[in-house]
C-alpha cells in the first residue's frame, strides 16, 4: 500500500474532512497539482474548482471556491473559503455562486474603468465558476 499523508479540509464554518489519504489533487491558482506523501513543502492559493482525494477509504471530491492549501511534511491542509462535498452541490448552489461572481465583475468594471487588473481578476473568477458549474452538471 502506498504511503498516506494526513489531509484536512477546513472552512471557516466547519471542518469538512480529516483523513489519511494517498493523494490529493488541488486546483492551484497556477494549475492543478497532486500532493502525495513526501511532497515538497508548498503553499499555494486555490482557484474555484474540484478538489479530489484518493485514499484507503476510496476517493472523495469537494467543490472549493477559493482559499489556500498548505503542504507540509506532516500533511496537507486546505483552508477553503467555501467548500462543499461535490455530491451535495446542486445546480442552484452553483447558480447562486455564479451570480455572486457576476456581481463582483460588474462592480469591478464600475470601479476600475481604465485599470485592467481587478476586472481581469473578476472575469477569471467568473469563468472559473462557470467551468466548475458545467463540470458538476455533467
Amino acid at each position, binding site marked *: 500500500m502506498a504511503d498516506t499523508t494526513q489531509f484536512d479540509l477546513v472552512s471557516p464554518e466547519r471542518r469538512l474532512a480529516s483523513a489519511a489519504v494517498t493523494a490529493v489533487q488541488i486546483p492551484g491558482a497556477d494549475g492543478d497539482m497532486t500532493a502525495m506523501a513526501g511532497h515538497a513543502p508548498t*503553499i499555494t492559493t486555490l482557484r474555484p474548482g474540484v478538489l479530489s482525494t484518493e485514499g484507503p477509504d476510496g476517493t472523495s471530491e469537494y467543490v472549493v471556491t477559493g482559499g489556500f492549501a498548505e503542504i507540509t511534511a506532516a500533511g496537507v491542509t486546505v483552508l477553503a473559503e467555501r467548500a462543499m462535498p461535490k455530491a451535495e452541490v446542486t445546480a442552484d448552489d452553483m447558480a447562486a455562486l455564479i451570480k455572486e461572481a457576476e456581481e463582483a465583475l460588474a462592480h469591478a468594471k464600475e470601479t476600475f474603468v481604465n485599470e485592467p487588473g481587478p476586472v481581469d481578476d473578476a472575469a477569471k473568477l467568473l469563468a472559473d465558476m462557470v467551468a466548475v458549474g458545467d463540470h458538476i452538471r455533467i
Partner: protein
Amino acid sequence: MPSLKDLKNRIESVKSTRKITKAMQMVAAAKLRRAQEAAEQSRPYTERFNAVMAGLAASVGGSDSAPKLLSGTGSDKVQLLIVMTSERGLCGGFNSNIAKLARSHAQKLLAEGKEVKILTVGKKGRDQLKRDFGSLYIDHVDLTEVKRVGYADAQGIAKDVLARFDAGEFDVATLFYSKFVNVVSQIPTAQQIIPATFEEEEGSEPSTLFDYEPSEEAILADLLPRGVATQIFAGLLENGASEQGARMSAMDNATRNAGEMIDKLTIEFNRSRQAVITNELIEIISGAEAL
C-alpha cells in the same frame, strides 16, 4: 402598609416575572451550546490560517514591498474602532463591558490628539456609545435579521472595512468584542486587525521553507484581506457565545432574586393576614364585653 390585595397582586406579578426569566435562561442555555459549537468548529480554520499568515508575514514583512495591510500606512493618525455588541439586551453587563472598553480606548486616543472613527456592529453598542461619540460614527452594521452568524456576514463587514482602508479613511483598525472564557466569565477584548498583528506562538517549530505558488507576495496580498474577514468572523462567534453565556447567568440571577422576593412578600402577606384576623377577633371580643 399595603393591603392584602396589593400584596397578593405583587406576589403574582413577581411569580410571572420569574417564569419569564427562567424561560429566558433555558433558551440562552440552548443557544449557548449552539454558539459554542460554532465557535469550536471555526477554530481549526482560524488557527491554521494565523499560523500560515504569521510565517508569511515574518518572511515578507521586513521588505519595503510588504502590503499596506501588513505594514500599515506609516501613520496612526486616524483610528477606526469596530465595536461589536449584541442586538438584544437583558444579558447583564455584556454590552456595557464592551462599550466601556471601547469608550476608554477612544478617550485615550482622543487625548493623544488622534482622530477616531467608530463603526458598530449590533445596536446595543451603538446606543451606548452614541451619547458620547455621536459625531464620530461612520457606519453601523445591523445583524438583527441574522439568526445564525455565517462567514458571509463577516465577509460583508470585512469588505466594507477594506474599502474604507483602500480609500485612505483610516490608518489603524481595532476590533472590540468579548472573548468567551466560560459561562460566568467573558473578557472584553481589543484586537488590532489592520495592520495585521500575529501573536508569537510559544514553542512553535522552526518554520519550514515553503515553495510558494504563485509567489510569496501574491499569496500574502490574497490572504491579508481574508485574514481581516477571518478575524471578524472569529470575533462575531466569540461574541455570540459570550452574549448567550452572559444572558444565561444574568437570567439565573434574576430567577433567584425573584424567588427571594416571593419568599419575602409571602411572609409579609401572611403576617398582615394574621394581623387582620387578630384585629377582627379583638373587635368581636370587645364588642361582646361591652354588652
